[in-house]
């Protein structure tokens, strides 16, 4: 049924990761409503969902920039992205 979507394990894992993150946020939101809104270091008022969005968007740009400017292998952008994600949830 899903052959037309041409699934591969790596892309499936990416989506499983994103959807799990959203599911976890939903559970946290049900337990602690309000989205943990705060004003971060960038001067933006963000909720948990905003921070996840920023982490993912930033990650895609870090990987794209690395691929365009440097190329393989991708351990560098992986480390940078994890750092960016931690920064987003901690400070932004």
């Amino acid at each position, binding site marked *: 049924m899903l052959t037309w979507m041409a699934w*591969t394990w790596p*892309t499936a894992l990416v989506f499983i990761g994103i959807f799990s993150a959203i599911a976890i946020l939903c559970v946290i939101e*049900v337990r602690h*409503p309000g989205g943990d809104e705060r004003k971060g270091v960038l001067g933006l008022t963000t909720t948990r969902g905003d921070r996840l969005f920023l982490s993912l968007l930033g990650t*895609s*740009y870090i990987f794209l920039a690395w*691929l365009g400017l440097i190329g393989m292998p991708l351990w560098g952008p992986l480390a940078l992205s994890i750092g960016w994600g931690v920064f987003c949830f901690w400070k932004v």
Partner: protein
Amino acid sequence: MKTENQKAWFFVLPVLALVAFNALIPMMTVVNYSVQETFGNNQFFWEGLTWFEQILRSERFHAALGRQFLFTFLILIIEVPLGVAIALSMPRSGPWVSVCLVLMALPMLIPWNVVGAMWNIFALPDIGLLGYFLNHTLGIDYDMTQNPFAAWVTIITMDVWHWTSLVVLLAYAGLVSIPDAYYQAAKIDGASNWSVFRYIQLPKMKNVLTIAILLRFMDSFNIYTEPFVLTGGGPGNSTTLLSIDLVKIALGQFDLGPAAAMSLIYFAITLLVSWLFYTLMTKDDLN
């Protein structure tokens, strides 16, 4: 402990299902395509991130992206001030209001491909009204099929003709929602027309203008049909915008992998610019 009724979320489910079918599932498929090569027949071969590397380093992509940004920038700096100016000069009450509104809405009712075809015929140098007038009456050498500058002028003019109305209608909605008391206060203070615009009308229009600019940005950044019908991306590649190039790669060359990678990069750019813009414009309100 404070309890909140979360039932409202279930009412969002139909929308979620709809978005899943028309956006999420196709997008997942594009992500899958972007890391594989196919020769049709539903057979795929793993390629990793090769297509992304290839697209990000291709001159062709850089050129199309540059043209796309130029196009979007030009139409925004023309349509937004022009739209606001027209909205300001429209009557606020009386029988002319509906006439103006209908006239303004007319271009937006015309389908995109019809607009392209209309302007194509209108601008042809020998048979089109505009082309003939410019060439034979005014003596200006204007041929959008040969001259890249003329082609650009034509696609920009067409977009301004088609979509300025959207900015006008949104700005007008913002203007009519300003209570009279503001104008009376300004009159008592002896405020000039410019001050009224700068300190009353513009701040009150800010929210609708944000929406207008966002809509125009996203629409013009994804524009395909009108320039495709009007110039077909030519002369040469001079008006080949991102979406036209994307379709050439995907359907013309049947390179689904590179096309998928390109559309994801395209999507990331649209997402970032829209987010940046929205965040910057609404930052003050939230704080």
